[in-house]
């Protein structure tokens, strides 16, 4: 089968198959959806870390001001 292997490899290695005509649009839509999802995820993570951090800093400032006023 060695020769058959070579034949299959030679013929199929870089073989191109015709894609459906809507393929490029499908791909671009999918890519855009993925990017939107990734952006949303990044934003969510940013908020999930950012809001508690901002609250912690605010609490620290308030505590500091309170202690100074005493």
């Amino acid at each position: 089968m060695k020769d058959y292997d070579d034949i299959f490899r030679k013929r199929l290695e870089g073989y191109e198959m015709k894609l459906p005509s809507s393929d490029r649009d499908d791909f671009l839509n999918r890519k855009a959806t993925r990017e939107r999802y990734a952006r949303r995820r990044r934003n969510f993570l940013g908020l999930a870390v950012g809001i508690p951090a901002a609250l912690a800093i605010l609490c620290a400032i308030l505590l500091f001001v309170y202690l100074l006023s005493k």
Partner: protein
Amino acid sequence: MRTEQELARLCSAGDREAQGELYAQYASRLYALCYRYVADRDEAQDLMHDAMIKAMDSFKSFIYSGEGSLYAWLRRLTVNVVIDRLRQMSKLRLVPIDQTMEPGYPEADDDAVDEIPAQVLLDMVAALPSVRRTVFNMYCIDGFNHKDIAAAIGITEKGSAGILAKARTQLRSAVNDYLKRTGR
């Protein structure tokens, strides 16, 4: 048309036009590659899209090493995407020896085999059971060795060699059937 190196550099920088060119140049080849593994056009298209998106996101790991290295990188990445999907879908289960093997076929003439249209050869590969198809594709067409195959699909190296032998037998009988049917 841009050179491979330039195309890779621009894609790595996130250039949309270059990404479009990359898609136009390689999509149909990668689609055929996916089809060889999954034997289903819709699934192959889906996998090709996944692989392209992954490639565009991970271009920074691509190192240009001469003409053809971009396709070699895309091909390896696509095979990995396909194998991951097949594993997730548990399609890489071992199958019992099937009924399609009939002993006693004469060896076909290599010249006659060489004249079989590529799409027919592709359909013969696609008709193999999932594990045989995967091993045959990885070993004979995409250049993996048995050690890599064993690690990728969770079998032993010896098992991989055994499955390959069965795939070859099945393909040989498919080729002979085709030649007999078409009177070559």
